[in-house]
């Protein structure tokens, strides 16, 4: 039986077991929305802006492991997705983004709301394609889901011209697909594993470096077993944090420019660095030619292009993290590294991650969050809030962290939390964000309110774009250029100090939350944190915004100055 392209689109979503779609309609997507009308299998969520929409799909995908699905109209609808496409793709999040497009005969004519979204997103997604023939539609949607979720997951953009949406054609949706140019690695090379084991057996100071790939592969349990079997200490990247419980005796901490001393020292001192699912981003390596300079490097990654790209590797292993760890579990044995572990833990004790200041500090707030939630999805925004969260959050199999690690997208946190809550209605979902990032997608408060999502938003309000301000303080002689959010017209342009006479902050987050129908609580004393969190937990039918008024000049420490080796950390400032 012949059906329209839009009907096949809905059928395809059902076959791909899509239960939630994040959509914003418009002239060139109206047929697709029409086909979604009245059905009950796929819940359509209408965020208030397409950027919020795609971050919500991203948060849904990261927290559930399923593919997030976006549907927007052509032109501005599509271009508003762009930041979210790059954000998700950078962190290997599986998304399929459908964009409406003008009819095929108008493409290239500068038609109303026409934009070449495939051309725009080509370099920031895994695959982008325009459907040009109705008979290819089913095959292309199948291909899109297959590419998004397999190998190193990523974003696929499918551009759907309006005439394809309305054209009649076959109703069949393929069960399988073969893409001749795309064959994700399914095997693990025995010889390379053997070499890795040999290197480990000779090591005196072996160290695991775990990246986001282990979390994406769902290999946390196996990773923990492997660490326990070998007795090797574990450090992580921000994206890998939580791969083994942060309270585990073998866990040292994050490495990188805001890491604790022990983790970075372990990198500098280790003799075998066994890294899994990381691409050695500049934020973790510091100066590359001094990174793990005494070590033999083993690197497992599903993406061959991530191996030996930033750091030269001695033993490369192209494989899915989970499959490789499962094999390692069969072939590894206990290593003699007790003294090494003792040394690292002594460093950790001597130089703990802690904040010197007293009162309502980010550390105190995050520690209260640790104590208040046994199971949770914690979503951060980007900036100091994210760095503090990744320093102090305790994670395990019941507490997951979502953060924009690669692109570092401000405005990510709140909408991603909405997506996470939709995907995990039974779990507590907490956002840790700054006052700057919160304002980038604050319109999504309406989405959270109308869907009765009890997301808990913790705004750490310091009145500044804090991370940039910190760099200005440390490396730019306190020239606070463009970073003060209390600034008003009457202020001097060369201000370098917040004070009592500073103008009032705008907006009033409490009144703003209330105007949306959410609950707002302002916290100014450390003693009020617990009660505020408790009130938020008890507010089950609407979001709660807790605004924490923190020290305007609180810094993230330690810090490795830009371009320096990891060993050169500024511990105090």
């Amino acid at each position: 039986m012949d059906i329209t392209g839009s009907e096949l689109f809905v059928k395809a979503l059902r076959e791909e077991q899509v239960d939630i779609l994040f959509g914003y309609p418009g002239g060139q997507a109206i047929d697709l929305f029409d086909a979604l009308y009245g059905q009950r299998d796929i819940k359509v969520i209408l965020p208030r802006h397409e950027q919020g929409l795609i971050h919500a799909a991203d948060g849904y995908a990261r927290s559930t492991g399923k593919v997030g699905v976006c549907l927007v109209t052509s032109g501005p609808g599509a271009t508003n997705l762009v930041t979210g496409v790059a954000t998700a793709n950078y962190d290997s999040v599986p998304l399929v983004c459908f964009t409406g497009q003008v009819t095929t005969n108008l493409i290239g004519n500068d038609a109303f709301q026409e934009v070449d979204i495939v051309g725009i997103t080509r370099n920031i997604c895994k695959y982008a394609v325009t459907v040009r023939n109705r008979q290819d539609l089913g095959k292309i949607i199948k291909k899109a889901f297959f590419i998004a979720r397999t190998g190193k997951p990523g974003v696929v953009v499918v551009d759907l011209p309006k005439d394809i949406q309305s054209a009649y054609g076959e109703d069949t949706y393929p069960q399988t697909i073969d893409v001749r140019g795309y064959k994700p690695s399914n095997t693990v090379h025995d010889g390379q594993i053997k070499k890795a084991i040999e290197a480990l057996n000779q090591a005196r100071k072996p160290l695991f470096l775990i990246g986001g790939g282990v979390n994406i592969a769902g290999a946390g349990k196996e990773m923990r077993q492997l660490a326990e079997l070998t007795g090797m200490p574990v450090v992580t990247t921000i994206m890998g944090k939580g791969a083994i419980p942060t309270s585990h005796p073998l866990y040292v901490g994050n490495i990188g420019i805001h890491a604790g001393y022990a983790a970075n020292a372990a990198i500098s001192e280790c003799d075998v660095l066994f890294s899994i699912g990381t691409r050695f981003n500049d934020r973790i390596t510091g100066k590359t030619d001094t990174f793990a300079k005494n070590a033999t490097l083993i690197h497992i990654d599903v993406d061959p292009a991530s191996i030996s790209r930033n750091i030269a590797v001695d033993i490369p292993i192209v494989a899915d993290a989970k499959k490789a760890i499962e094999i390692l579990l069969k072939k590894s044995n206990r290593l003699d590294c007790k003294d090494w572990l003792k040394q690292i833990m002594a460093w950790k004790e001597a130089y703990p991650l802690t904040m010197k200041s007293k009162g309502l500090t980010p550390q105190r707030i995050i520690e209260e969050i640790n104590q208040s939630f046994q199971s949770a999805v914690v979503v951060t925004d980007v900036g100091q809030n994210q760095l503090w969260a990744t320093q102090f959050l305790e994670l395990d199999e019941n507490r997951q962290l979502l953060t924009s690690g690669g692109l570092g997208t401000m405005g990510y946190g709140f909408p991603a939390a909405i997506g996470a809550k939709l995907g995990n209605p039974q779990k507590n979902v907490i956002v840790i964000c700054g006052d700057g990032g919160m304002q980038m997608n604050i319109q999504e408060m309406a989405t959270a309110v109308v869907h009765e999502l009890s997301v808990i938003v913790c705004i750490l309000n310091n009145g500044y774009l804090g991370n940039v301000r910190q760099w200005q303080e440390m490396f730019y002689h306190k020239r606070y250029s463009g970073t003060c959010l209390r600034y008003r017209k009457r202020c001097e342009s060369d201000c370098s100090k917040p004070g009592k006479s500073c103008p009032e902050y705008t907006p009033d987050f409490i009144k703003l939350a209330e105007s949306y129908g959410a609950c707002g609580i302002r916290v100014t004393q450390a003693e009020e944190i617990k009660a505020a969190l408790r009130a938020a937990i008890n507010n089950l039918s609407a979001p709660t915004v807790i605004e924490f008024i923190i020290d305007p000049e609180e810094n993230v420490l330690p810090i490795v100055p830009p371009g320096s080796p990891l060993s050169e950390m500024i511990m105090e400032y």
Partner: protein
Amino acid sequence: MKKRWLCLFVENEIGVLARISGLFSSKSYNLDSLTVGTTEDETISRMTISIYSDDQIFEQIKKQLNRTVEVIKVIDYTDLSIYSREIMFLKIKKCTEADKTGIFRFAQVYNVKVLDFNKTTVLLECVQVENENDKVIKLLSERFDNPFEIIRGGSVAIEAV
């Protein structure tokens, strides 16, 4: 740093050339030349790419191309026995009769074909390996002061039998 050759089999679809050239520009890889054309299978296009790079960047380029969905196969021609040819047209202007005689003689010696000429202009065609075409340009500009116009097609290459 050295000159490398790649052969690419890609999907014959709209946008694939942009995908490949976009990959080079977005990663700041230096592309010397790129040619593309259809093959015996109309769903597949074949590209010949020359790159000047060091070993590490070249490895990364191959990996990046291989992970591109539209790329079916990447073959490194750098150390293989291959045949390659580049077409080049040269239009030499403001020629006197003596210039023309010299150019015709030059053409006979250096395997260059005279395609067309009039009173003042000669059009030459050279189909040779890229280096030989470089040499022709060099020799011509050394021997003749005439202004000339060049268009080069980029190399196509195939493995030897």
